[in-house]
């Protein structure tokens, strides 16, 4: 869903800003906490620079995913305009044009077991990823067996069998041309499906760093402008207040909505036909509610209240899992089922992070009058808080 929002160009812009900012390499390891705007800028820099390779890769490969949408004329020049033409292009690109027409004569499908055995003999045990059967029950049936993705290359080798007699018709190579291979490597890197568990965690951490970088950037934007506006132009506070509320609804409200998505996944019965759609609807409804909440409450209170709700929402995901399924932590941990247990534990970790956030915000809120006093009596810290440029 993330790519529909199209914030990728924004990230590119963000990166250009960061790269242009000369001090980032001098400040590579530097984070100075509890110093207002300076701390937000430090955090923004560290989060950005540290995962720079990941961000460049994920942004550029994200653009490649949309190459045909962003630069439609190249495809249109050879295939014509419109969705049909684009589909024809992709079919040809992915080698799907070789599909044969059904003959209309019925013929039972050959046994798949020897086909799978033949593929595994070629690639190794457990290395067959998928079976694709075309024209089943026809004399022109085709069975395509695809190899698992074990490298960043998105495309993999595939074996095409005659579905009627089980004969190997074609070995589709993983690589067709250099340019397609370059594209497939970028798309494979973007999806990360080849990654081993440690690398998947690194993908996850890098993604979180990127999210946090954008989050700190959003807050930095408002912190910087609020200082200026309070000094010079109180009239500009209205637009600023709007952005501050959007920040609450996005930085905390959106995670709550994601937790709601997982709640919906557990609570909507499987028999409900539009279950998948309503899981998504639940997410957007909850997000809208939290944006509204942020708009109606005082900003400082909205941060704290939403942080507590987020903490509860994430902490209850494993509880819901335990109440509605039999693959909860009490089962998955003793069994060593790290895919299930890892998810539940990650949800608990998110809950803990939001508890920390809420506690820190509450402490700061109760200490606020003294901070303001200090600012007024001591001119040095406020001078330090001037923008770094």
């Amino acid at each position: 869903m993330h790519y529909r929002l199209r914030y990728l160009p924004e990230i590119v812009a963000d990166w250009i800003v960061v790269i242009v900012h000369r001090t980032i390499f001098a400040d590579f390891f530097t984070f100075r906490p509890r110093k207002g705007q300076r701390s937000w800028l430090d955090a923004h820099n560290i989060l950005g620079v540290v995962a720079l390779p990941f961000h460049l890769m994920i942004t550029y490969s994200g653009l490649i995913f949309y190459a045909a949408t962003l630069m439609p004329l190249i495809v249109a020049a050879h295939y014509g305009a419109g969705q049909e033409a684009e589909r024809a292009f992709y079919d040809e690109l992915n080698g799907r044009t070789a599909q044969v027409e059904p003959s209309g004569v019925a013929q039972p499908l050959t046994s798949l077991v020897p086909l799978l055995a033949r593929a595994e003999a070629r690639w190794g045990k457990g290395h067959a990823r998928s079976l694709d059967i075309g024209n089943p029950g026809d004399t022109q049936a085709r069975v395509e067996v695809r190899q698992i993705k074990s490298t960043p290359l998105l495309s993999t080798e595939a074996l095409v069998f005659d579905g009627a007699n089980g004969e190997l018709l074609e070995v589709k190579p993983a690589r067709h041309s250099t340019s397609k291979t370059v594209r497939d490597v970028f798309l494979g890197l973007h999806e990360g499906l080849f990654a081993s568990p440690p690398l998947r965690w690194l993908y996850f951490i890098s993604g979180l760093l990127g999210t946090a970088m954008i989050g700190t950037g959003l807050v930095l934007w408002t912190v910087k402008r609020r200082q200026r506006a309070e000094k010079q132009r109180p009239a500009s506070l209205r637009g600023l207040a709007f952005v501050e509320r959007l920040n609450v609804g996005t930085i905390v409200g959106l995670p709550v909505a994601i937790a709601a998505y997982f709640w919906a996944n557990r609570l909507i019965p499987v028999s409900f036909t539009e279950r998948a759609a309503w899981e998504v609807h639940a997410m957007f409804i909850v997000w809208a509610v939290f944006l509204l909440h942020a708009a109606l409450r005082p900003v400082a209170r909205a941060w704290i209240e939403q942080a507590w709700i987020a903490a509860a929402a994430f902490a209850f995901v494993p509880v819901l899992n335990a109440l509605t399924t039999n693959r909860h932590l009490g089962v998955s941990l003793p069994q060593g089922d790290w895919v299930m247990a890892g998810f539940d534990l990650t949800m608990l970790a998110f809950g803990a992070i939001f508890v920390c956030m809420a506690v820190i915000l509450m402490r700061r809120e109760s200490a606020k009058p003294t901070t303001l006093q200090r600012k007024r009596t001591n001119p040095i810290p406020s001078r330090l808080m001037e923008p770094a440029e």
Partner: protein
Amino acid sequence: MIVALALVLSCAGFVALALAMDRHHKQFRRRVPSRSLRLLLRAGGVAGLGAGFAACIVDSGWSNGSVLWFGILSAAALSVAMGLTYGPRDRQLAVKASPQNDRATLRSQAESLH
């Protein structure tokens, strides 16, 4: 296990690179490093990161290993940055650091002190 080794080597490399910078060197020794020590630390840092790369290649091969290395670099750099911020040495010196301890004045200050 080799992945853990790659992470340790990369962390060590980044610590050496951080110590080659005036600000972080002062967190430990209260003075800036000499020119030769700075070069040595930089070389050591690059060697650490390089050794981490070698470990990644041994673990996962050229294509997956190089991807793994970039991920490990990110994790290691962040760990070192957080260590330098919240590590015990820093907290001691942070109390003593004057509010003017700005990036621009740091170098001249250091030179005038020693």
